[in-house]
């Protein structure tokens, strides 16, 4: 019971508080943005025809009603919470009358599939390579790895992504240029193969940078561990190298690494904006981008909400899992 009361409960409350504050801020931010969705909708409707002022006012009222934007900000806020708690994110403004729920549902799979795989692959790769390269720091392959990853790391992501795209989709058209898959969606091999083909370049662009980051982090953490008394003592006692690397070094670098993995996995729900835009990938990042440039409040809110819940939940899970990774972390 003390475990529940002193460890789990405070963290759950914190989780709720973070979500509450996050949701409130996301509610406010688009409402102070200079782009007004009603003007946008009106201008779309009036682009091809002239309306009398009275008709415009009537139209404005009906759009406000439709979008749930009537009343003071406070009334909107209450109505907003009511809808959220029902799990209804409202209609998208720009793709009206499509519901935000449906749009997110359609794109989230792409994003989770792409980013989830990338985050996990890059984490494992960077962690293992970084630890090994730090442990065997005088070997040629470790120097080669370190030098190449440190060279790649500072290249801005959009340049790396663009170079990959130009090279492998344009000059050497090995991979397709846009989209997430081709043919009828389904669990057929032909379809899955096109999905993998489409995902390869965006994945590669993410994995390179993320691996480099993880590698550098793992290497720094490992060199600290190697100098520690317990690793030195294990070396002196001639413990097998494998044991030292995995149980004595890597295990001790786990805490910060797992934290970071959790947060990166939580951040998946924001989508990878630049990746999805550069590679025209039909994920949640593209939807967010479109929503922002067209002031699609509900859409922005829906995605932001998702990422707030995602990151808050991820850090909750990371927090709850600490005692498994480090016995020194006991609940307070």
């Amino acid at each position, binding site marked *: 019971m003390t475990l529940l009361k002193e460890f789990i409960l405070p963290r759950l409350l914190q989780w709720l508080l973070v979500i509450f504050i996050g949701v409130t801020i996301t509610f406010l931010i688009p409402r102070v943005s200079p782009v007004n969705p009603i003007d946008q909708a009106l201008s779309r409707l009036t682009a091809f025809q002239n309306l009398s002022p009275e008709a415009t006012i009537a139209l404005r009222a009906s759009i406000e009603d439709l979008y749930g934007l009537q009343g003071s900000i406070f009334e909107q806020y209450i109505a907003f919470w009511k809808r959220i708690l029902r799990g209804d994110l409202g209609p998208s403004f720009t793709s009206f009358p499509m519901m935000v729920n449906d749009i997110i549902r359609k794109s989230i799979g792409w994003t989770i599939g792409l980013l989830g795989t990338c985050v996990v692959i890059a984490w494992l790769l960077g962690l293992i390579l970084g630890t090994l390269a730090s442990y065997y720091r005088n070997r040629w392959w470790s120097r080669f790895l370190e030098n190449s990853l440190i060279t790649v790391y500072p290249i801005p992501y959009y340049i790396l992504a663009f170079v990959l795209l130009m090279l492998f989709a344009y000059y050497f058209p090995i991979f397709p240029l846009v989209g997430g898959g081709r043919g009828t969606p389904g669990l057929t091999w032909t379809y899955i193969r096109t999905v993998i083909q489409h995902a390869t370049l965006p994945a590669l662009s993410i994995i390179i940078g993320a691996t480099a980051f993880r590698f550098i982090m793992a290497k720094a953490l490992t060199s600290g561990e190697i100098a*520690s*008394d*317990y690793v*030195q*003592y*294990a070396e*002196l*006692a*001639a*413990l*097998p190298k494998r*044991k030292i690397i995995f*149980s*004595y070094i890597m*295990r*001790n670098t*786990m805490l910060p690494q797992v934290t970071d993995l959790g947060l990166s996995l939580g951040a998946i729900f924001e989508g990878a904006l630049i990746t999805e835009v550069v590679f025209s990938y039909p994920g949640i990042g593209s939807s967010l981008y479109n929503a922002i440039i067209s002031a699609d409040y509900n859409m922005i809110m829906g995605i932001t909400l998702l990422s707030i819940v995602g990151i808050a939940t991820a850090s909750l899970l990371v927090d709850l899992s600490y005692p498994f*990774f*480090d*016995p*020194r972390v006991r609940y307070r």
Partner: protein
Amino acid sequence: MPTIVEVKDLKAYYHTHAYGVQRTVKAVDGITLNIPEGQVYGIAGESGCGKSTLLKVLLGAHKPPLYVVDGSVRYLFDDAQIATLSLDENTLRELRWKQVSYIPQGSMHVLNPVRRIEDIFHDFVAAHQQVSKAESTQLTRTYLRELGLPEKVMAAYPHQLSGGMRQRVTIALATILSPKLIFADEPTTALDVIVQRGVIQILKEIKRREGSTFVLITHDLGVHANLADRIAVLYAGKLVEEADSRTILKKPLHPYTKFLIQSLPRLDDRSTRVSIPGRPPALDNPPDGCRFHPRCPLAVDKCRTVDPAMVAIQPGHRVACHVVTEATEEVRHAATA
């Protein structure tokens, strides 16, 4: 008493260069000694005199920037004579824990914080013997019980143990495979006297049971008085005096040893203790001649130029001091004349 470790004219220097400046620190400079089997051989000396460096070389655990420049170290086991300094890495690893073991300085942090004590024991035992987890756990349980350590430490993590318990667990970890030769580097430092006593008792118990040879390094002469059979006194990278502990503690000859013994507090004597004048020399630029001469009240001209060699004043009592050597020779001449 057969010798188990033979050290001949050992020189180990730290070579460093930073920003184009070469520096050589002569931490061990020409040490010759024989460590007798089955005894506790104490090495005493103040901080920075080269004790730990000597131990590293004796263990064969020296790494750059520490280089062995000259001399030899040989382990004389019953079945084999091993020249440690020319061994390759793998043979050296073979010797560790089974034959030669090490109790480290500052045992506070030598236990992996994320592993239970029984798992650490398993790691160390399994590295040298084919054992299952159950077998090593059984071995550990028996051994800890014999040393009088509570069984519940096995399931604990290192941070859950007190400093003294951690040190005793580390000593058990270092000695569980009954090595012939155990090097202990400041095993009681940073522990309060009550806990020190526990640690000293455990070391005595191990020695009694296994008949292992201990090489005990500490600056604490009280611990030496308690444990050591022979004591070697180190000053500025050189041996200055070596004899059985009784002689060192009761009838020291070298001026430095005399100062050391005089500085020990006694229960019945409340007068102020005299400390040794001056400071220990920097080992990258030691004084010529006898390294103790700038601080020595007896120093004569010869001391400033000629480095004194270790001379056996009596059987089993060696001293490196011109004044002492000459005085003994005069006595001898007078006796013969």
